């Protein structure tokens, strides 16, 4: 089925909200079973890029291909078919608070795949085990969980349908450094176990170094640098250097008023 064709291929993606240009011609290829991390500052368009690929936002111009299939402009039902290949871990986990933890994890199985609840519950508990959570949490409501536990449940939900492509939106934001590393390890393990393609966005460099095969940096709506993770420290790109070392001074000017 695959002969060197990228899993996800983005070409010339443009998106503006009103006068504000957010994406200004993004080109990005992600190979099969590759883990790509897009880094960039706040407001650089990372999240919008992800939402465009997921079909939550309609691009103004450009092309997005999944397995060679153009997905821009699909109808709602065709889009749902494409989305079956996807798993997504949201920044705030976005667990459904009207459902219990196991119903959340099993949601993709019971709703769109039509699996019986009993069988789906077994799989959900197995997936919760895979992210290091015991059966005792399965009947809890998401509101009773801590931030790190919610993230792990979100991860379990993202991998429950065994998707071909998993998206991670700022997987470590709001977590302490140790829990961040736990989540990073789980992401690496889950993606490797599934043989899935992964696209993450983050501004946490420790996380990016850990989970990425390849890193791309987005700045002002364009990809300004992309390369293997080991090359990130000698990119020769002043923007990348400023970002990974977290310096306030450099070519990237934060849009704040200087008093």
């Amino acid at each position: 089925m695959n002969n060197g064709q990228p899993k996800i291929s983005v070409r010339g993606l443009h998106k503006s909200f009103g006068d504000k240009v957010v994406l200004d011609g993004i080109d990005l290829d992600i190979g099969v079973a590759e883990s790509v991390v897009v880094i960039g500052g706040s407001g650089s368009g990372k999240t919008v890029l992800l939402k465009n690929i997921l079909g939550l936002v309609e691009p103004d111009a450009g092309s997005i291909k999944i397995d060679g299939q153009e997905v821009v402009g699909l109808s709602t039902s065709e889009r749902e078919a494409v989305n079956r290949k996807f798993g997504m871990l949201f920044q705030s986990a976005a667990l459904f608070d009207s459902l219990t933890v196991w119903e959340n994890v099993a949601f993709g199985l019971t709703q769109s795949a039509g699996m019986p609840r009993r069988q789906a519950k077994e799989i959900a508990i197995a997936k919760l085990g895979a992210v290091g959570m015991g059966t005792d949490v399965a009947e809890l409501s998401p509101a009773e969980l801590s931030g790190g536990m919610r993230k792990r449940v979100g991860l379990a939900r993202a991998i429950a349908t065994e998707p071909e492509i998993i998206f991670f939106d700022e997987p470590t934001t709001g977590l302490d450094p140790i829990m961040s590393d736990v989540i990073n390890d789980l992401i690496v393990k889950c993606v490797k176990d599934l043989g899935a393609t992964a696209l993450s966005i983050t501004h946490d460099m420790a996380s990016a170094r850990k989970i990425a095969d390849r890193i791309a940096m987005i700045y002002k709506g364009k990809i300004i640098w992309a390369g293997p993770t080991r090359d990130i420290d000698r990119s020769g790109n002043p923007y990348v250097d400023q970002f990974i070392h977290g310096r306030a001074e450099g070519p990237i000017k934060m849009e704040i008023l200087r008093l």
Partner: protein
Amino acid sequence: MYFLASVGRVFLAFLSGTGRLAMFTSVAVGHAVRPPYYPRLIGRQMVEIGYYSLPVVGLTAVFTGMVLALQSYTGFQRFNAASAIATVVVLSVTRELAPVLTGLMVAGRIGAAMAAEIGTMRVTEQIDALSTLSTNPFKYLVAPRLLAGLIMLPCCVVVADIIGVFGGYLVSVYKLGFNPSIYLKNTWLYLEALDVISGLVKAAVFGFLIALMGCYHGYHSKGGAEGVGKATTNAVVTASILILSFNYLITEAFFAR
């Protein structure tokens, strides 16, 4: 010039809002009538809208029937027409007061709850999460609420009809000294099926509108807690206004026959 520009802006905002609502309604109805249906979700919403609204609906109806009997007695006894009270109570309640007051009470209870729940799901990315799990939010969230509203409001109004007439009976018999059997006979005497049916048709339309406004404002809410609060207010206000204006339109449609 500034004045004209602001008038134009308000007018354009009104037109685009109307268009957005029309699109939302057509997509939502399309999903409500086409399978697959979610019986579990529809059932849960029916219990929420119907069963848990009964205390509020019953209290509203009983006091309305009671005050109606008292007020019409004040007027009618001045020209010796006090025997018409039973007819006035039953016609007012079934045709007008039960559907409208039930609609307004349920709009406050259910419209607000729907807007707050769906609005919170929107701002916490839960609606996006539904899409990524290949579940259409219209199918999963909106359609069950519309169907449940459409079905359950007429059921609530049947209860309100009965309790409202009973309220009138209580005051007429125990306070104004009417003969119970004559009062009941007069209640049935001039009541036609169309009186009740027109009230139930109103109720179904109101139930649909309440759920539609709750879902629409919740679905389009943005900007965190403040946005959800605004959506809740808008849902109740627009539902109430639509109920009152559709009440007139439906009454006129039935009246013309």
